[in-house]
């Protein structure tokens, strides 16, 4: 297992901007290198792991439900969990509990836990580096 651990904080919800995709790219790259990764989801970021996200067909694109294969961030998180297993590195995802309650998105996918800023602080202390990707 790698001795390098990176911690990320993501703050934006899915589907509205490019920062979320960029964060996922960085996390994927870190896992590719076999690094351990912690992700603390804050504010709108807690919706990224919401289990009730649903894909859809797209008549404007002229594609069926299956063809469209609409990207969902909960699936991206699950895919990164799978990659971490393959790479034998740790991948932890914790959502801010109060942010979850505000938004009513408590039904999250397996492997994502509930926590608070103190968890993020502990991760930051134990990590080689911490990247905060805040809302702009």
């Amino acid at each position, binding site marked *: 297992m790698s001795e390098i651990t990176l911690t990320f904080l993501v703050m934006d919800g899915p589907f509205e901007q490019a920062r979320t*995709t960029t964060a996922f790219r960085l996390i994927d790259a870190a896992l590719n290198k076999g690094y351990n990764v912690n992700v603390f989801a804050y504010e709108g970021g807690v919706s990224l792991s919401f289990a009730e996200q649903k894909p859809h067909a797209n008549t*404007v694109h002229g594609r069926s439900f299956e063809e469209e294969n609409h990207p969902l961030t909960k699936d991206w998180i699950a895919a990164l969990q799978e990659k971490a297993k393959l790479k034998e590195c740790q991948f932890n995802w914790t959502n801010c509990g109060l942010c979850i309650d505000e938004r009513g998105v408590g039904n999250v996918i397996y492997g994502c836990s509930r926590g608070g800023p103190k968890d993020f602080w502990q991760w930051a202390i134990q990590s080689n580096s911490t990247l905060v990707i805040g809302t702009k």
Partner: protein
Amino acid sequence: MKVLQIIQSAYRCIVEEQDDPVIWFAQVLKSGDGDVDILLKGNAVNYAVNGQGGDGIILGTWQQTCPAKVDQDLHQALNSGLKVYAIAEDITLRGIPETKLISGIQKLSRKELPNLFEEYDQVWSW
């Protein structure tokens, strides 16, 4: 009612949505008999460049199968009868050559905007 859609924020969520949501929105309105057109402004003028689009990203074990093709979406919009305008100065500033632009997109100068706006009942800026 005739409405002009001004798009300025470019490439902000096209991976997750597989398109620019405003172009998609305009096409949906058009298909429902909405009388809408599009004006590309600022960074969004790059949408007018032919042949763009990536192969889609791979995240862990997930692979994008239908990445956004904004130029094709604009082709489709034009074919459905939407007018697509782009601000000439913004195209020039970004060094986009005329030969790269999608056929059918109408370039116009900033000083022509008031006259364009006069043609519409409402102008929505995204």
